Every structure is written in structure tokens, then in C-alpha cells.
């Protein structure tokens, strides 16, 4: 009886050995399951590229490079060139950046260096709430509130003062490039602001203190010690905003007018890559029509991926370099 008790822990009982190999099996299984979850992102990336390539193969074959230079998008004659949509995407995103980047950086300066400490957190939360408003709601607001206001009072003034520029000539429809640019600006403000704020916060305080010690005013500190120092990171924030603006779909679809257009007037209705897909995909009756829309998607995907990679590299290079220096 006694000996039995003493020997049990020493000799590996069959039950224990079983449990241990079960453990090893459990570990391997769990490891593999987790690996699977992680690899899904790689699979998804391959899937997106493959599906869009497959979907657009017909258009790729038929139009080749001419797809990018063709300025005619005509489903009736089965003639598809993406240039009007590329134009619309570039112009509306460009307008959005012109408005959102100065505002976003100004706000970020206010939030990091100027605002009373008590105000900073609530303001940041408000900006996060701004980001939580769905795209379709911005579209609704743009269509029923902003667009009538712009059409009735702002655009006529612009035309009166700057009408000598071709940008502000032509009939005022209300919907169009400028309106969608303004809506886009509002929508990318949260990301531009929050990334700029992150960038400004990673500027070492020593930098500011040194400038103050030299007798700089508050703005000079911001300009000399903070802004010029954080230039690259802020540029990254702007490019990140650009990536958002290019891919934004619903709000733009609702206020841009969805007409393929290339020309000078910012008041003219136009179309973007994303709005073209959203507007026409369910109507695409012929194979080549649908395939061309898939190719628009492929262009859109390629551009956003490129823009995002550049932007992230810039922001990350800046913020990690700074934190390393401080640490």
C-alpha cells in the first residue's frame, strides 16, 4: 500500500502520458487555428486582386492601355474609357485636400499646443464622433442642406468674384465637382486631424523649449520648432486623407451628379471611380460593361493601396523615429 503511493508519481502512469500528448495535440491545433486566422488577411488580399483581375479580364483584353486614356464612357456603344472617372476622382479629392489639410493641421496645432488641457480630450472625442457619422448620412445632408445653400448663395458669389477663372465659369447645377469636394473635405477632416495630432505630439518637447528659450513667440515656436520639424509626418497625414477621399463612395455618389465629365468648370456634374461603380454596377447589362466597371474597381484598388502604403510609411517613419529619439 505504502510503496504503491510512493511509486505512482515516479512511474509515468498511462493516464498522465495520455494527457500530456493530448496537451501537445491541443497546442499544435490551437497554433494552427490561430495561424489560419492570421493568414486569412494574406488570402483576402490575394482574393481581392484575383477577383478584380478576373472580373476585368474582358475589358483588359479589349481596351488594353486605351482604357486609361479613352475619354469616352458610353454604355450604349460599348465604348469604355476610364479617363473621365480618373479626372473626377483626382479633382474632387484634390479640392478635399486643399480644404481639409490646412483645417486639420490648424486643429491639430490647437489641440496639442494651444487648447486648455481640460478641453483637449472632449474635443478629440467630438472629432471621433465626426468620423463615426456614416457616409450615406453625409450624402443625405449634402444633398438636402449643403447643396441648396451652396447653389443659392455661395456659388453665385464665387462666380461673381472669380468668374474670370475658367474654374468658376459655366452654369451652376448645385451638384458637381466642387460640392463633392467640400463633402469629401468634411469626411476626411477627422483622419487628417487625428493623424496630424499624433505626429505633432511626437515632436520632442525639447524642440519647443529650445525655441522658447531663444525668445520665439508662440506662433514662431509652432512654425520653426514644430511644423518644419514634423513636415514629413504631416505630409503623410495628408496623403492618408487622400487615400480616404479617393475611396469614398456614397456621399460622393449622391452629390456629384454621376456624369462622365472632363473640363474646367468646378460647378459641373462629374463622376469618380467609386461613384461610377456604385451608380452603374447593377445596371450593367452587357459583359463588357460589367467588366469595364470591374476594371474601374481595379484602378481604384491599385491607387488606394499605393497611396496608403506611401502614407503609412511616412507617418510611421516619422513617429517611430521620434519616439526612439526621446526614449
Amino acid at each position: 500500500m505504502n510503496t504503491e503511493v510512493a511509486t505512482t508519481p515516479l512511474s509515468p502512469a498511462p493516464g498522465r502520458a495520455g494527457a500530456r500528448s493530448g496537451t501537445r495535440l491541443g497546442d499544435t491545433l490551437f497554433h494552427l487555428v490561430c495561424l489560419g486566422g492570421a493568414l486569412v488577411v494574406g488570402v483576402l488580399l490575394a482574393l481581392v486582386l484575383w477577383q478584380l483581375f478576373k472580373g476585368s479580364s474582358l475589358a483588359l483584353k479589349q481596351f488594353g492601355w486605351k482604357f486609361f486614356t479613352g475619354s469616352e464612357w458610353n454604355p450604349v456603344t460599348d465604348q469604355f474609357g476610364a479617363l473621365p472617372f480618373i479626372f473626377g476622382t483626382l479633382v474632387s479629392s484634390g479640392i478635399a485636400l486643399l480644404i481639409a489639410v490646412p483645417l486639420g493641421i490648424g486643429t491639430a496645432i490647437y489641440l496639442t499646443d494651444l487648447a486648455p488641457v481640460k478641453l483637449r480630450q472632449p474635443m478629440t472625442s467630438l472629432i471621433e464622433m465626426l468620423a463615426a457619422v456614416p457616409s450615406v448620412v453625409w450624402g443625405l445632408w449634402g444633398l438636402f442642406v449643403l447643396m441648396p445653400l451652396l447653389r443659392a448663395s455661395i456659388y453665385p458669389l464665387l462666380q461673381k468674384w472669380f468668374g474670370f477663372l475658367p474654374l468658376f465659369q459655366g452654369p451652376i447645377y448645385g451638384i458637381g465637382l466642387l460640392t463633392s469636394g467640400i463633402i469629401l473635405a468634411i469626411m476626411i477632416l477627422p483622419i487628417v486631424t487625428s493623424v496630424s495630432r499624433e505626429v505633432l505630439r511626437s515632436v520632442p518637447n525639447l524642440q519647443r523649449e529650445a525655441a522658447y528659450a531663444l525668445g520665439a513667440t508662440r506662433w514662431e515656436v509652432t512654425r520653426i520648432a514644430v511644423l518644419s520639424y514634423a513636415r514629413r509626418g504631416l505630409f503623410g497625414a495628408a496623403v492618408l486623407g487622400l487615400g480616404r477621399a479617393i475611396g469614398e463612395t456614397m456621399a460622393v455618389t449622391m452629390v456629384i451628379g454621376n456624369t462622365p465629365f472632363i473640363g474646367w468648370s468646378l460647378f459641373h456634374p462629374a463622376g469618380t471611380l467609386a461613384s461610377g461603380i456604385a451608380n452603374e454596377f447593377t445596371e450593367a447589362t452587357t459583359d463588357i460593361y460589367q467588366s469595364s466597371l470591374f476594371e474601374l474597381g481595379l484602378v481604384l484598388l491599385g491607387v488606394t493601396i499605393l497611396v496608403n502604403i506611401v502614407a503609412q510609411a511616412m507617418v510611421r517613419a516619422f513617429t517611430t523615429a521620434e519616439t526612439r529619439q526621446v526614449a
Partner: protein
Amino acid sequence: MNVTSSNHNIRKAKSFAMNGLCILCAVLVILPLGLILFYLIQKGASSLNWAFFTGLPKSAGVPGGGMGNAIVGTLELLALASGIGVPIGVLGGVYLSEYGGERMNTWIRFWADVLNGVPSIVWGMVAYALVVLPMKGFSAWAGALALAFIMIPLVLRTTEEVLALVPRSYREAALALGLPQWKTIVRIILPTARRGIITGILLAMGRVAGETAPLLFTALGNDYWNKNLSKPIAALPLEIFNYSISPYDDWNRQAWAGALVLVAMTFCLSLSVRLFSTGRFQKNT
């Protein structure tokens, strides 16, 4: 002396002006939020009634009707998308934080960040090609899959970040007590980080709850209650879109009401995020 002092005054004035400009920027950034909330309540609140939440849409031109099916549809889509996206995202996050080597992790993080930048309409096209074409019809599944695709990289990244905050000593203590690694993860590490993981999931749900573009040609929309997930389903964002571009005043009015409900939903999600994430990390261990 005189010159420097006037120069100083100019510099101070300039500083004052530029700081004022920054404050103006901040006001202009917050302004749209106030405006949109004001108009949502002004134009939407009066249309909210019992029929709006429970009823089906009436045919064009007939006043009344509701978005009950769309509200339920959005909740169904959210549940399905989370059912697909959350387990994959969380497991992937566990892999990055607990198993993966440096090189592998760098790649997976990079891919996830690239996926996060993919426009949502593109996910709609992918789900269309994957589900709608083979099944020869628009379906709730296709819409849910498109939303799940958006959720996966988001959940994965936040889960990884939260798990990295769990102290190393927890893992060492559990392993030293003879727990196998998978049990350490499932019983010790995941519960410790529960709050943060749920926060990440809620954030991802809030992000996809208002998505319209990926549903346009997957879930499509439906004027009736959906009884079969292989059939088209109504969703609140889709309904708002269709009603707002329609020429009927009554539909436009309901679009505002729908938007108010949708924004209330997403704000509730982000509010619960705040409640979850403000709790102290160690408290719930």
C-alpha cells in the same frame, strides 16, 4: 530700441493672429458635427413613431410606412458579419501576439494595414463575384460577407494591440504552473484582455454598421421582411440612400428619420466603446 520693440509687437500680433486662426480651424472642424446633428433631429425626429420602427415600406407615393425590415436587416447583417469576421480577426490577433515570429508578423501587419485601406465598394465587388454570381442572386450572405471582409483586419489589429498589453508575467506564471500554452491563452490571456478585445469588436461593428457601398450589389435591399438569408435583405443605410435620391417628399422625410436612427445606432456603439475602454485594465482580471 524703438525698432526692436515695434518689431516685437508685430511678432506678437502675428502670433496672436495665427493662434486665433488655429482656434478658428478647430471651430470649423467641429461645426459640421453640430450642423448634422441639428438637421438630423430637426428633419428626422418628427417622423419617428411606432410604425416607423415596426412597419414595412409603403409603395411609392403612398404616405406612411416604416423601416422596420431595414432596421432588423441591418442588425441581422451585423450579426452575420460579426459571426464570420470576429473569430477570424481575434484568432489572427492571438497569432500575432502569442505565436508569430518577427518576419511573419511584419508581413501580416502590413497586409492587414493594406486591407484596411481598401475602399468598401471594392469589397462589395469581391462579394458579388464570390457569392452573387455563383449563387445567381443577391443575398444577405453576400452582404454579410462583404462586411466581414472589412471587419477582419480591423479586429485583428486591435486584438493584437490589446494582447500585447497583458503583462508577460501572466504568461510565465501560467506556463510555470504547467498549463499548456493554448489553455494559458484561452483561460488567462484572453479573459484578461477581454475588455479591450470587445472594444475593438464594437469599433469594427460601428465602422461597418453604416456602410452602404458594399451592400449595393450584394444585399441589394428588400421591401419585405427577409425570411431566407439566401435572398436579398433590406438594410438601413441602403434604405436611406434609395429614399434620399427618390423624388417623393415622403420618402425624403423618411430618409432623414432613418439617418437619425442609424447615427443613433453608431453613436451608441461608440459610446459603449467608451464605457468599455475607460474601465481600468487590471480591474477585471
